[in-house]
């Protein structure tokens, strides 16, 4: 075998490893907890400014009494068909209120968050967006924050923000369609239903599935005891694109 070879070549791309643990344990029952929801799936009020699709590290505060019909998505990282049908498939705001009425959780936090995680600037999310969202949630007395990403890059952004929120003493969990990214990026807790990116919180208009995913996820916040745990959830939905 005669091959033209070169000595001294160097690999040009760094291959990463998981970041260090961050952990806040939950010290009260779910029925007494204030629960917030944050998504990197580009959800915002129709009256708010659209996200810049090529990369935007700003975030939108969503008052939790907003009707689902007032919400929309601006995000190019995943097929929008499902969120266009039902915003709850990414941002299950209606399910949260139902869980509050049922007494499954204490209450829904007054403010929820949407940001556009795709194409994001890692440092900005780490140093600005994450800590800013964490401070507001802390101020509002939030006990648990549940996250969804959208595409791969927004799983990364979601996890960066999740870690910032966990770091201020709030227990967090991400419902991940791409669990390896959440794991690699150091998500404290992960649930993984079998869902495609774009409907990370369950099939659109399937209230039973969305409720089950959200409930199981919240139960995991109570049950998981160490950093980086992941639980696969037995719900499956395949998007018909």
């Amino acid at each position, binding site marked *: *075998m005669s*091959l033209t070879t070169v000595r001294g070549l160097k690999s040009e791309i760094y291959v990463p490893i998981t970041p260090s643990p961050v952990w806040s344990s939950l010290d009260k029952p779910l029925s007494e907890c204030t629960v917030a929801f944050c998504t990197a799936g580009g959800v915002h009020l129709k009256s708010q400014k659209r996200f810049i699709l*090529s*990369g935007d590290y700003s975030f939108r505060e969503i008052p939790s009494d907003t009707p689902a019909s007032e919400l929309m998505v601006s995000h190019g990282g995943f*097929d929008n068909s499902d969120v266009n049908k039902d915003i709850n498939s990414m941002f299950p705001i209606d399910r949260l209120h139902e869980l509050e009425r049922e007494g499954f959780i204490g209450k829904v936090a007054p403010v929820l968050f949407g940001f556009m995680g795709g194409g994001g600037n890692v440092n900005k999310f780490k140093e600005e967006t994450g800590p800013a969202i964490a401070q507001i949630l802390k101020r509002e007395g939030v006990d648990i924050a549940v996250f969804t990403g959208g595409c*791969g*890059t927004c*799983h990364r952004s979601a996890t960066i923000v999740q870690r910032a929120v966990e770091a201020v003493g709030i227990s967090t969990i991400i419902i991940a369609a791409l669990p390896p990214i959440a794991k690699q990026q150091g998500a404290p807790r992960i649930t993984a239903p079998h*869902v495609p990116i774009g409907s990370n919180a369950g099939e659109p208009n399937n209230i039973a599935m969305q409720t089950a995913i959200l409930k199981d996820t919240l139960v995991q916040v109570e049950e998981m005891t160490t950093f980086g745990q992941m639980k696969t959830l037995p719900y499956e939905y395949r998007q018909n694109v």
Partner: protein
Amino acid sequence: MSITFETAKQHQNDPAVLCCLRTKGTVISASDLEDPSIFPDLEESGLLTFPEHALTIGQVLGATLEQDADSMTPLTPELVSHFLENPKNESESQKITTSTFTDEDPTRETQVIRFNIDKLVGQIELPTGLNVNALPFATAPSKKAEDKVIRTLTQRAYPVEQVCVGEETTFKDKVLTIREALCKESLKADPLVKNVELDIIRPEDRHVYSNTIMDVIPIGTKVEGILGEGITNVMNGVVVVLTGVDEKGIQVHEFGSCEGYLDEKIRFGRPGSPDLEDIMIRVNVTVQENTGMERRGPYAAHKACDYIIQEIRDVLKEVSADASADQKIFRDWKKSGKPRVILVKEIMGQGAMHDNVLLPNEPAGVIGGRRNVDLGNVPVVLSPNEVRDGGIHALTCIGPATKEVTRHYFREPLVNLMAEDDEIDLAGVVFIGSPQVNDEKSYVSARLGALAEALDVEGAIVTTEGFGNNHIDFAENIEQIGRRGIHVVGVSFCAYQGQLVVGNKYMDAMVELNKDPEGFENEILADSTICPSDAERALVMLKTKMAGIPIESANRKWSQEVIDANEQLIP
């Protein structure tokens, strides 16, 4: 976290750091040590600093701790006794070659001398005069193995110097005329298409505002044979640029945008972009509102555009061979005695605008092809000639700077380089989709591994367009090939914005595609796609790896200097 003995062996030259509190008298083993692969993170966060005289893992295994020490303490001569000053290098000690006689009675008359060889590196020299045919292994082949041509493709080039719109579609004397009514007719291609406009942009008039560029499509047509063989007529000096919005004016299939002035938003001369001297035929499609981010909307726009191109193809078919200015011959080879390799091209397959048409009837066409999402994103093998004859029509729109448009595949530098290289045998070009669902990602990657194994290749180059969730597939595709003992090189845009989020030990020879000074997806069409220089680095890296010559590990952060230095080493 403690490490295993195997990990300790791999990292024997890395510093030894205690993973947990250990008391005086402890005899150090792997389970007392921290994983060196997380040292950079620990150092970065200030949790760990190394003294100059820190001992290596190879030195401390079996040594005794002389005082209590906390976790994250680097071990030094002051802290331990009985460490090795110069530990034996594991890999050197393995080079010893042994041979033993077999149990057979040596006095028996057997006409042969037989002994077992456990491991042999290098050559055996035997005196001449032996009967060569009696040797139990092959000597130099008596007959030179011959390379075979499997198929031949002839591309006839027809220069175009002027394009205009008129009564009838014609191509005469280097002037292409496109029938005006064609735009309206093209609405028939799909009910979601609401309007189609076409204009001609000459090289000198490029400061023209444009919607985001969905694709750049060469104009070619089959005259004889099927895709990959026979004769194809191609127009030179002209290219179709597809743009689009929905009825509300929202840009179609954007994830990152190159909406703006064409002269500013295109990196001219990339394999996928228009060349500096090209005339652009801009086809601007309006699709039904809210379908621009769904799978059907962009596909409808591509179909309408293809309808227009087909009428141009039909006149191009009729042009006489004599009128062609240039003729290129492409061959698919079966090269004997050369290491077999494959090129794996990961393409988007997450639905929406993340899709591609494989093997259309016409070069770079739409009709007759199958979309990789419909095929379940499983690996599909094309011959190099099929790729170079327009076997891929890209519906994809990821970031404009990193997406591979249809013209990119038509002029893919890695396909050309690997197909023409005399030292390797390119067995095929494998297209594998990046699915939307995580489980499916593992499924298709595993099939890729099985395919590489069945093809019995020695090496592979894996490329991906874009960045983000497709990097999961990228990592897994490389792993599935690498774990089978096949040498792999990975090629992707990562730089700053696209930093890898998952990785594995087989990703040790990587080529960076970034061309943006800040390392961002910069919204200039095709800027950070594979160029000939990237292809050359990737192929030399693969050959070097196959020859067993080490590739140095990557720096922790992206830096252009590394790429420049590699570039300088290319023969």
